[in-house]
């Protein structure tokens, strides 16, 4: 029982990370059909924002020592600001470009962010002790669960409920949902495009920052490439969830987390190294049977 519960928590916490990432990508895809490859680098940049630039091996903590009630808003603000800056400086000029061009532009932007961090901080991973209080295990029904896992799951749930309420109950949310369903139509009906897109980028950036906080406290490392693997999984989750469907992205994120965790548990030791091959095989199967994604958004036209 204890270990089963543990597996459940493992799957949920990994799934939470992917779901948060997928949400960040789906939000932007929804309003401007952009697959944002810079998302992973925004995650990394949020973690590095806690350090002073230096190429020494020992990290010089800057904001990392703030109490949590200041630290969390600080990082979220950094993420949102960086993301909005990306939109204002780069993506705004690609409104009418085709998706492939936007995709490559976002990749190039991510490349710029990554190498900028590399120049400031060197390639050596930096260690940070982020929210050390979360590194303790807690006992639940005979299972010892790291506190951070519980927080991760709780935060993700809170974000999901908060976002749902925001999208359902506020005017801004309504505009954003309308834009995601049919951007041109929404615009004709008086939705202010720039504001909605800015809002989507800000939300997406804040979500990236949330992932950065979780990854940072979980791994204790700031690493240039740290956002990359989450971003890839999130990207896949967005697609198999149904591009443009926020609920689908979240569902697929949790599903991917569960599949990866369960594979690690059930595969025999020799096959465990091939875990990713099985996971990606499953992705292909899902796509073959549901090319539009698990929950396809109405009004999502194929544009790539």
């Amino acid at each position: 029982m204890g270990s089963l519960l543990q597996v459940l928590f493992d799957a949920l916490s990994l799934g939470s990370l992917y779901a948060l990432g997928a949400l960040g990508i789906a939000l932007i895809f929804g309003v401007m059909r952009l697959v944002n490859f810079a998302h992973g680098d925004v995650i990394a940049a949020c973690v590095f924002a806690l350090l002073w630039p230096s190429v020494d091996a020992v990290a010089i903590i800057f904001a990392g020592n703030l109490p949590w009630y200041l630290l969390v808003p600080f990082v979220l603000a950094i993420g949102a600001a960086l993301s909005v800056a990306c939109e204002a400086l780069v993506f705004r000029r690609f409104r009418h470009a085709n998706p492939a061009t936007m995709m490559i532009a976002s990749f190039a932007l991510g490349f710029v962010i990554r190498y900028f961090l590399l120049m400031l901080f060197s390639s050596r991973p930096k260690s940070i002790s982020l929210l050390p209080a979360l590194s303790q295990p807690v006992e639940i029904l005979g299972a010892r669960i790291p506190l951070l896992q519980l927080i991760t799951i709780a935060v993700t749930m809170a974000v999901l409920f908060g976002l749902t309420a925001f999208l359902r109950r506020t005017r801004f949310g309504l505009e954003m949902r309308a834009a995601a369903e049919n951007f041109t139509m929404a615009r004709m009906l008086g939705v202010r495009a720039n504001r909605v897109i800015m809002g989507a980028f800000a939300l997406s950036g804040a979500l990236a920052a949330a992932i950065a906080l979780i990854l940072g406290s979980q791994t204790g490392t700031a690493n240039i490439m740290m956002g990359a693997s989450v971003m890839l999984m999130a990207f896949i989750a967005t697609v198999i969830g149904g591009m443009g469907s926020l609920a689908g992205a979240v569902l697929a994120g949790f599903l991917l987390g569960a599949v990866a965790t369960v594979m690690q548990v059930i595969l025999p030791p020799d096959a465990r190294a091939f875990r990713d091959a099985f996971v990606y095989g499953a992705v292909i199967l899902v796509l073959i049977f549901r090319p539009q994604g698990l929950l396809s958004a109405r009004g999502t036209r194929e544009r790539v």
Partner: protein
Amino acid sequence: MKRLMTALAATTCLTAPALADDERIVVGFATAETGFMQAYDKPAQDAAMIRIAEINAAGGLLGKQIEVVNADTKTDRAEGAKAGLTVIDAGADMVVVSCDYDFGSPAALAAESAGLPSFFLCAESIKAGIQGVGPNSFSASVLAAVQGATMAEWAHNKKGARTFYRLLDTWTEYNKGICDGFDWMLPQLADAKLVGEDTFLNEDASIAAQITRIKALPEEPDAIMLCTMMPGAVSAIKQIRAAGINSMILNGSGVDGSYWLSAVPDLSNFFVPVQGSIYGDDPNPDVTAFNARYKEATGGDPSTQYVYPGYVMIDVWAKAVERAGTTETAAVVAELEKMNAEPTLFGPRTFTSEIHHQNRARYLIVETKAGKPGVVDEWTISEAIPVAELMK
């Protein structure tokens, strides 16, 4: 230091193409000055430059000053091949290549086909040498397998560890090498038992599933052999301790250093094999003196033990050149292969015509206790790991 190297590089580049061998002695560094490998190559290269400066200050090698040329591999294999060719064109007599076998081998292969000796700065795979490059290639470090074997035997003999758990990060050959050495040693230890094993990937965001498997064991293992490297290592260690597992953790040298310890506050029961101590408590006072010289030259303390192989490399190569009386490849390689337990600042080094690497070496054991690392012991494995075993 950097300025000195660039100046040297600039002058030698201008005098290219290669001049006759007997006029100059040139060491070519085809290493990463940018990108991921830079963090590993730069410190070892700085140490190598210290040894070169020492030799030059003492009158040079064969009466000539050693010159240096550089080319950047950009942490890219195709660029590595170009960098190798660049330093060879600039007249290098010996080519120093990137720390890692995968990234260093293109340049080493270029040196090999030009008939020049090459040294990996700190590669720890058997392939970084005769087996993977050719008869003129060497590595300045110690095999990863020796690290795994050292930790297993030491933990068994000195700490009474009997039950072992093996956790392998399949990302690199280095990681697998540590676990291979551990696998070779374990059956030779009386009563030692492998109670479980698992794999993960360095970039895995979470290793919760792997940890759950450890916790499902009827009792906590005495020791966990953790075969991994940075950056994933910190994450794995942090998650293992956060899950409440307190077994001793055995590692390879890749996790040496105190720069990351802040990520896992109050880490204890944590053991790392090192060639020399960066913590100022090396049993050999000359090592501590070297650390001071390193700080003087680079402005910072050595951050890991991977600084040291660079120094050893120039040391043994210069000795071989001195003994051969020439930089001619065959003569230098023959002299290197005669070295048997050649004393260096960081323990004895042996090269044979069969293996250009250390399959047995003295290691210092560093224990981290309540977040403070320090040397607690030293250990040399009871017998050298057979070459046939390493090639498996």
